């Protein structure tokens, strides 16, 4: 399922339509968003290097982790960094997002840039101005694609960081402008859902076309559990989690998928989920008054009822009850009580038909002769 996301990003945007946009969400209980982001990034970059994707390059807006981190990430994945200038450009918004460091350098307070800063990255110093950020992204993207018609992908390391500096409407404006830009092939970003208001998260979900959220495998019941009992849950939740994906398809339907993943040395491994999918259908359709379905227990009971016919169809000899107990009968007796009720006594394995006639409810009037109403 996670490959579907990567394939959707690889295939990119159709002509005249918005680019697909992926939100990767995580929370404190399942903090694997950045690992998922790395996974998607490395998958997409391998598609790009193999020239199988619509986009010819990625513009990575690094807000929470610096360009050095990504260089090491690509090195560990085996991607060739020497040629990486051709397919990836990093917009470094992490080293000096508000321009303070350069101001300090100008005034001579600090000597030089800290060693180890990648010289390949493009430094961006004004994260608060999202219009300029948009222009910077587009410019970098255009450098990646030589002719004017090629497309590039955009990865934003953390929209949560962006929301620290700018309002939700300007971030939403930036993302939707990127989506509708004719040269952007696909777009994905990371979001930490606990630190934002629901309005901000709802707005970002409104803009994105695919949402992947990382959830813990098990949630301990809140309240009375002692800390020691929570440990196994915590351990389990730190080793992996579940990923829930919502795909907005072009025909207007929503595709829901779930998978489990576990964190390994080399990265993330996805496995299909073992438990059954939840039922969503009930809430959409108006409630129905009649329950026509039989539960499992009811079905079994129905199968066990011995019908009051002579021939039961199971090959045994026909036994017709004639009012006398025959000596062969070892089982419980079949009683026929009054004419109004038909009832079979249950064995441990037999079902029961209980029939109540409506006329049983009427109390017979002892002092009235029903024939008095006749008027002949």
């Amino acid at each position, binding site marked *: 399922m996670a490959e579907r996301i990567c394939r959707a990003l690889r295939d990119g945007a159709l002509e005249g339509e918005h680019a697909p946009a992926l939100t990767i969400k995580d929370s404190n209980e399942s903090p694997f968003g950045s690992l998922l982001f790395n996974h998607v990034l490395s998958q997409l970059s391998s598609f790009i290097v193999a020239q199988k994707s619509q986009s010819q390059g990625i513009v990575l807006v690094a807000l929470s982790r610096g360009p050095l981190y990504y260089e090491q990430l690509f090195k560990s994945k085996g991607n060739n960094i020497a040629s990486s200038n051709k397919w990836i450009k990093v917009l470094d918004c992490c080293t000096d997002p508000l321009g303070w460091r350069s101001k300090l350098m100008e005034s001579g307070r600090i000597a030089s840039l800290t060693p180890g800063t990648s010289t390949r990255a493009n430094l961006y110093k004004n994260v608060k101005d999202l219009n300029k950020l948009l222009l910077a992204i587009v410019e970098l993207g255009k450098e990646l694609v030589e002719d004017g018609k090629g497309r590039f992908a955009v990865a934003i390391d953390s929209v949560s960081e962006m929301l620290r500096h700018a309002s939700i*409407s300007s971030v*939403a404006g930036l993302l939707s402008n990127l989506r509708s830009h004719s040269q952007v092939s696909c777009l994905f970003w990371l979001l930490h859902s606990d630190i934002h208001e629901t309005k901000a998260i709802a707005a970002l979900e409104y803009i994105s076309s695919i949402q992947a959220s990382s959830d813990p495998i098990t949630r301990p019941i809140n309240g009375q559990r002692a800390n020691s009992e929570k440990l196994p849950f915590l351990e389990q939740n730190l080793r992996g989690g579940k990923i829930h994906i919502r795909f907005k398809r072009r*025909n207007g339907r929503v595709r829901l998928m779930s998978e489990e993943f576990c964190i390994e040395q080399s990265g993330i491994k996805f496995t299909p989920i073992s438990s059954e999918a939840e039922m969503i259908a009930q809430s959409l359709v108006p409630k*129905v008054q009649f329950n026509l379905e039989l539960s499992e227990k009811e079905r079994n009971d129905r199968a066990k009822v011995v019908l009051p016919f002579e021939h039961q169809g199971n090959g045994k000899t026909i036994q017709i009850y004639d009012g006398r107990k025959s000596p062969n009968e070892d089982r419980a007796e079949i009683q026929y009580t009054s004419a109004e009720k038909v009832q079979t006594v249950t064995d441990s394995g037999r079902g029961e038909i209980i029939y109540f006639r409506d006329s049983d409810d009427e109390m017979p009037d002892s002092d009235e002769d029903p024939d008095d109403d006749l008027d002949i």
Partner: protein
Amino acid sequence: MAGNKPRVGSFSRNFTAASNTISQIPGLKHGPNGTMFLSSGILDLDKILGGGFTLGSLVMVMEDPEAPHHMLLIRNFMSQGLVHNQPLLYASPAKDPRGFLGTLPSPMFSKDEKSRDRDAEQEKGLRIAWQYKKYFEEQNSEFQRDEKSEYCNDFDLRKPLERHFYSGQQIDCIRLEDSADLTTFHDRCSSFLSQTPRNDRNITCPGRIAIQSLGAPQCDFADKECDMLSFVRSLKNTIRSSNAVAVITFPPSLFSPSFSKRLQHLADTLVSVKAIPDEDKELAKLLTGYQDMVGLLSVHKVARINTQVPTILEATTFSMKLQKRRSLILECLNQAPIDGSSGSSYASSGSCTGSSKTGALDF
């Protein structure tokens, strides 16, 4: 069953000479209580609402953040206006609203592709008792209208609207982002509406306003709920005294519940669209025709102007289907069995056009 036919009393309105011109203006139709109707562009929706959108009313569509179905409603609405040469004002939060005009569907004109044919086929296997045949005569007379001046066209969503419909038209496209607190946008709407005033002497061509995704997150006014409320309220007041219909879509999931409720109360006609999950086995078992469905449409309120009698619909939730991937049809949900307020029980997957037709045959 009352169906969707308006109650006709023994009084009938004495139409003045000026109103005779209405029958010559395509796209306008008389409604009950002295109102006039404008087509929504979707045949089934017109039938559900009892004739179309009432002139002078405000229609609001509640979007589902996961599905673009409100775009279908807006597209058909705008195309119908262009086909009937009605002035149009369109606003959206996109950078280039004019680009949206290129996605408007084209009307289907050729008779053999008409969706009405499916109804004709259904009747062949049905033997009608002789005294009920007179009810069918009414339906046949509708087919003889000239296609060009049809009240509501059937739109082919795969074909873009032809160029000649755009030329010579008054089409204003506005970017919602340009208006920081909606005042400039409001002024544009007012000036547009002043061109279609309402008076008894001469009926001008009715106007259409389509506002898509009011309050989308990229607009600056998206968190200024009071400004948006006062804009919608003043728009509603202006529209009441003009010959126009405004359709506004908004995303209620992005608003606070009280604001969303206020917007819903402001609407004269309120409709919501909902997405359905893909490849859901439970839904496929519950609903027939699940494969063709793209979404659900619910009608919450129908405009009633000049009357105190509310419209009570037989069914409020309809499934949206794309017939042959071309035209949008709305059908009652078919699930067995029902409780009284939802869906039709008679298990035939006929469209709502079918159910209102057989209303005369209900025993």
